[in-house]
């Protein structure tokens, strides 16, 4: 049984990370029958500047809904990485956009640096799916939720007509993560 796995997705206001957080949570809760809670930052933060979404996944009850010690942090901007990496636990996973995050936070983390935005724009061809690319990468690297569950959750959330695009984005991300690991 998995006790508690804490994920934080961070970046800037318009990057769709809140949707990504919701998808992750639904993948775990609805398609894997586990528990998941998702929270996010509101307020001026949510309007430009750094923004975050958190997902806690567990096979048991989730009492405290916010992250206490992050198992995984995704950062799509330098600012968000600086601001939100404080809670990443020793040995935790840090996934960053290699094109946008240059300064790494101090600490003992497993760092995975990939050109996430670039994958979205170049390989998938649309910047708007950066969040889904990130989900693909994260799914592979974290290894706590199955590929199928996340895909189902994506399909249930994204607007009709964009399914293919989003599946492609997820797959590209997943593949990139896979390459890095293998």
């Amino acid at each position, binding site marked *: 049984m998995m006790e508690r796995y804490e994920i934080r997705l961070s970046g800037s206001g318009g990057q769709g990370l809140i949707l990504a957080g919701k998808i992750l949570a639904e993948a775990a*809760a*609805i398609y894997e029958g586990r528990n998941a809670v998702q929270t996010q930052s509101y*307020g001026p933060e*949510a309007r430009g500047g750094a923004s975050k979404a958190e997902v806690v996944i567990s096979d048991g009850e989730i*009492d*405290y*809904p916010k992250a*206490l010690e992050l198992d995984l942090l995704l950062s799509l901007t330098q600012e968000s990485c600086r601001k939100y990496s404080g809670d990443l636990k020793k040995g935790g996973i840090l996934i960053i956009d290699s094109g946008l995050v240059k300064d790494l936070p101090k600490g003992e983390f497993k760092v995975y640096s990939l050109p996430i935005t670039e994958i979205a724009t170049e390989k998938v061809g649309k910047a708007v799916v950066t969040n889904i690319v990130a989900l693909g990468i994260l799914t592979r690297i974290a290894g706590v939720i199955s590929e199928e569950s996340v895909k189902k959750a994506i399909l249930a959330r994204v607007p009709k007509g964009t399914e293919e695009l989003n599946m492609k984005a997820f797959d590209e991300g997943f593949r990139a993560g896979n390459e890095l690991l293998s």
Partner: protein
Amino acid sequence: MSNDHSGRIRMMQGNEACAEGALVAGCRFFAGYPITPSTEVAEHLSVKFPKIGGRFIQMEDEIAAMGAIIGASLTGMKSLTATSGPGFSLKQENIGYACMAEVPCVIINVMRGGPSTGMPTLPAQMDVQQARWGTHGDHGIIVLSASSAQESYEQTIRAFNLAEKYMTPVILLLDEIVGHTTEKVIIPDESKIEIVNRRKPAEKPKDYLPYRETEDCIPTLAPFGTGYRYNVTGLCHNETGFPTNDNKIIGKLVHRLVKKIVMHADDIIEVKKTMLDDAEIGIFAYGSVSRSARSAVLKCREMGIKAGLLEPKVLWPFPKKEVLAMARKVKAIIVPELNMGQMAREVELASRCAVPVHKLGRVDGNPIDPREIVDMIKGVV
């Protein structure tokens, strides 16, 4: 927009769960005015209601919204409004009207921080005393609390049931964390959900007295337009609903408004106990903080400290008996809350000096970390 996966499990924000609970409870009227962090309740119902013939209206302000739900309730509609601190303050006058005229309705307050505009997007539990005393004049009131999306759903249903049963406004307090956290809600079969509807008059219109004195202190208000002609007023009134200056009748009325809640306290009050049986340290916590407290209890138990948790699901009437019982068993009580001790004073009052009561207040917009509670417990032990 909505995520209608078939099946009984849904992921929802607390605010959305309130809206869904309201639908199931039979609520078909919503009037509101947007305010962070409660707005999603309204937004969700603005999508849902028109599809099923329920009535949504955005009013010009919170005062009007409160007035509108009272008016709608008198036509027999179960009615809801949702707001946050500043709007809750504005609604107080008309909440008092609903108490006085005994009009069932539900008010959700998703609490944010600070007095005044404060911290619109940050969590707090600073309106728990206001929920009891916010309107002028003596009155009784029912105030519920929820600590998860699941409870938001269930407590909204319960709020409507209590409102209809006791003919009174019921307040449901969420804090921003509960309102905005998305998590699993298990939706029971509708047939398994108990729904209470207000009493209808048994007598003919000519014999009808809306505020007839009854043993249970609960009046029977016929929906407007059903042939029962009567008067509703915020002035002190007699059994017919007409204003009076007769001191005896006035005295009885005000007494009854308070007694109506007090005499049914056992039916209304609900608490959840976690590992309290053998506890030496009792924690009293509600809303999102009770989740931190539960974590803390578990951590303490791992460390061999016998902590237990009393979670009031109903804040008012205050669960005096339950607190006293706990106070007589434990060595100390800790009350963590997102305010400067508003419920701690009630715990102190109820525990009748049986044990020391320790406050753990946080007012900086951060949630209470379970580790803080653990630390305090360690300090007390």
